[in-house]
């Protein structure tokens, strides 16, 4: 089975490399001047006609007129819009299997599961999502470290924008667990950490005495206290390192709350175990009911791709719809939007999600920030990504029109100064718009694979609604 899978991946990689080759060959770190375009920098007022200078992988200048060096490659963006690369604040897509089966695995790293050959990355690029926060799924208790990648590159290294960005946790029960068990596991994980660290401290102290050939003269508590200072980073077992950092508030963390009742639990847990100040809450659609608690917490949130919560009234059976981002926005919280993968079209685009927010009365400014600057800040990359500012990574899009317009396509994409996408050279898109006589060869559908019994494949249902929250 493994071999078959390998073979398949190889075919896939081959197919894709054809597409990627185009991008890679065009990608050379050079000085580029995007001129005469409408600039939407996100962090400030739009510039109706201006230029963006990209140099050494960073944005060198943004303004109505920019002095460009003589060797800059000039791209005329007349009638086009220059926009920062969009950011997907949280997804398990792009991974092989998104969750390890044991619930508490803080020592894992998403790096090992990133599959660069997935169509997901190609689509993200086409849709203008240039930074993707790849995280373990929601079906966990304490899962591993996450990573921010850009959707271009043949290996996870090449794709990495920032490694080990955050830890993924979930207070919503994982498969086979109920809420009580989930929380019991949480308590147990941190209790064990404390105990093991205390034991380590005691051992360190005793070891030191042993080395100095001294006798032990203090009771255990004191020994532990004294031993604490003796612990060096190398002493901490791998399995505990991340959890320790988390409990010391040194690690950013994304906590999944699937239902409203999970929000207070998440806040309580985060505060109790000391990682609240670094928390970002990943919310299910029903959680807007806990808006008071969320507002008090004041932490940024990542919203469910299904922006509308529909619920039948328990008493009358009438269905009620709530547009969740509006509730969150009204509470003054910073939020990031996720893409929704179940739909045929639409919610799969981040810009479309933002457009829905505008439609429901959220300001355009906030809507645009929710797919660029805010997620960047949540990821601790606010100084590198999310807006068109001098010194930031040159993750820049050239769009055919306003980002929230239905008829707008991504025309060019730059990641860290390299041109990685050009619509004119997008093989799949060209095929989807080909005249009938052009198309006699392969179908336009993604390569469909034979279904293997009982073997869950992420590729298989890649564009299907996941059965459970992963």
């Amino acid at each position, binding site marked *: 089975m493994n071999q078959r899978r390998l073979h398949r991946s190889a075919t896939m990689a081959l197919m894709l490399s054809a597409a990627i080759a185009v991008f890679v060959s065009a990608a050379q770190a050079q000085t580029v001047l995007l001129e005469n375009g409408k600039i939407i920098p996100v962090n400030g007022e739009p510039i109706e006609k201006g230029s963006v200078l990209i140099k050494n992988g960073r944005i060198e200048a943004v303004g109505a007129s920019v002095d460009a060096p003589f060797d800059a490659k000039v791209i005329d963006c007349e009638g086009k819009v220059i926009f920062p690369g969009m950011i997907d604040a949280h997804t398990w897509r792009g991974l092989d299997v998104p969750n390890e089966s044991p619930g508490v695995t803080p020592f894992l790293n998403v790096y090992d599961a990133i599959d660069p050959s997935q169509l997901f990355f190609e689509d993200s690029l086409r849709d203008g999502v240039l930074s993707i926060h790849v995280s373990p799924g929601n079906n966990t208790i304490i899962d591993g470290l996450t990573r921010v990648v850009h959707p271009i590159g043949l290996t996870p290294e090449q794709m990495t924008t920032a490694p080990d960005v955050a830890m993924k946790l979930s207070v919503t029960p994982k498969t086979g667990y109920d809420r009580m068990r989930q929380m019991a596991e949480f308590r147990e994980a941190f209790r064990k950490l404390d105990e093991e660290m205390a034991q380590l401290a005691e051992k360190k102290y005793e070891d030191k005495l042993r080395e100095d050939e001294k006798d032990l003269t203090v009771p255990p508590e004191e020994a532990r206290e004294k031993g604490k200072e003796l612990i060096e980073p190398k002493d901490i077992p791998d399995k505990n390192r991340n959890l320790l950092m988390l409990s010391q508030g040194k690690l950013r963390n994304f906590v999944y709350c699937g239902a409203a009742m999970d929000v207070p639990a998440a806040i309580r847990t985060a505060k109790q175990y000391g990682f609240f100040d670094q928390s970002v809450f990943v919310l299910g659609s029903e959680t807007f009911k806990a808006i008071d608690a969320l507002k008090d917490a004041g932490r940024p949130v990542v919203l469910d791709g299904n922006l509308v919560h529909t619920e039948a009234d328990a008493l009358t059976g009438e269905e009620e719809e709530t547009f969740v981002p509006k509730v969150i926005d009204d509470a003054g919280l910073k939020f990031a939007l996720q893409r929704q993968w179940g739909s*045929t079209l639409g919610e799969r685009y981040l810009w479309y999600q933002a457009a829905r927010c505008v*439609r429901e009365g959220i300001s355009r400014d906030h809507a645009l920030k929710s797919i660029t600057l805010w997620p960047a800040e949540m990821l601790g990359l606010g100084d590198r990504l999310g807006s068109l500012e001098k010194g930031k990574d040159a993750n820049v899009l050239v769009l055919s029109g306003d980002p929230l317009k239905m008829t707008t*396509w991504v025309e060019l994409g730059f990641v860290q100064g390299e041109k990685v996408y050009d619509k004119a050279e997008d093989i799949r898109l060209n095929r989807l718009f080909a005249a009938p006589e052009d198309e006699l060869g392969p*179908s336009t559908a993604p390569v469909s694979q034979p279904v293997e019994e009982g073997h869950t494949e992420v590729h298989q249902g890649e564009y299907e609604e996941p059965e459970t929250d992963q």
Partner: protein
Amino acid sequence: MMRRLLLMALCLPLITATTLFADDRADESGPILLKVGKVYVSPNEIFEPGAIMIRDGKIDAVGESLPAIDDVRVIDMPEATITAGLIDAAATVGYRFGFHDAEHRSEVVPETRALDTVDLHDPGFADLAAQGVTTVYISPDAASVIGGQGAIVRTAGPRAQRIINPASSIKATIGREPIVKASFNRTPSRFSGTSFLTRRPTTRMGLTWVLRKAFHDAQMVNRGETPGTSGEGSPSAESMPILVDVVKGEKPLRIQARAQNDILTALRVAREFNLTFVLEEGTEAYRCIDELKAANVPVIYGPIFDYPSGWRAQAGEADRFRLSAPRELLDAGLTVALSACELQGEGGLGRMGAYARRCGLTRKEVLAAMTTTPAQILGIDGQAGTLAAGRGADLVVWSGEPFEATSKVNLVFAGGALVSGRIDK
């Protein structure tokens, strides 16, 4: 009779009581003047700015500006745009039992009615109405070779006024669905023979045979001959009157087909029995444009997608979809309506329109494909599809231009009544 009258008399004060209880939308029953930025009377007739007067459930007047008479409630929405209520000519909505919604006693069941198994209060209708779809043809389940009769209904309003045609065209399906879906496909044994437990067509050959046999027999009956009953898959006696109507051209026929070969099969069978039909879905219609044009077959195209899902993906019938297909069909001069099929709510017809624009259609073309064209295909162009004065007021008030990602359906009127959205006082 007396008793019923008495009961009605008893109910009368009650009805008044309930109308008192009903919320603020009760106020909208009076005449209303909507003043907006733009009115699409029909895709090619635009007032900018525009105004529409609704009185007694009908469009009283429409123009650039209308005088506000005393008793009229004026609603001023300078940013908004008004179009006619959208029409989906091939919706799948309101089915109650899913799997059991198609009658499986035979492959040919045109005598059944889709409306019988549809719940008109299903939230799906509210979803459609909320997104501006006011009229739908409820397409029968595709699990039969010749399925039932679809219904044309309004998506909102009192039940009595909602049913426009309870038994509209019958629907035949060419493709994997009648071959596989809901089928036991047991090999007929020596003892049990062929029954509804052993669905006969297991290939497209068998399917086409059943389809041809049905029309062949109907044609014989129409000529006054008695068809032989020995042939496998003979249509039942119950289905015959309807099939004869189809052959006579009195009952409209539509055929659901996605792949190129299936569409060509549909054209071939139609030619053989001299039938006219409407093509539903037509994912690969762009590959047989000339043939469709020659037969003058209207296409209800949709949904548009860039990754096939659900049954379409399973059956492998949508692998060769094209985003440019609607553009190509229109360019070829075919009659094209757009449909969202089973998609409702946010992802339904309205957004399908937005995507059609992304795929190269103009706003007017999209509007035509969702109002006037489907009305014409369904034969209700006398009542729906445009905002001409004197018609029932089925209209949509958009927050901006229709079919934009940032535009929202603000108000929907069906039969002159506000059925979705709220008017701020």
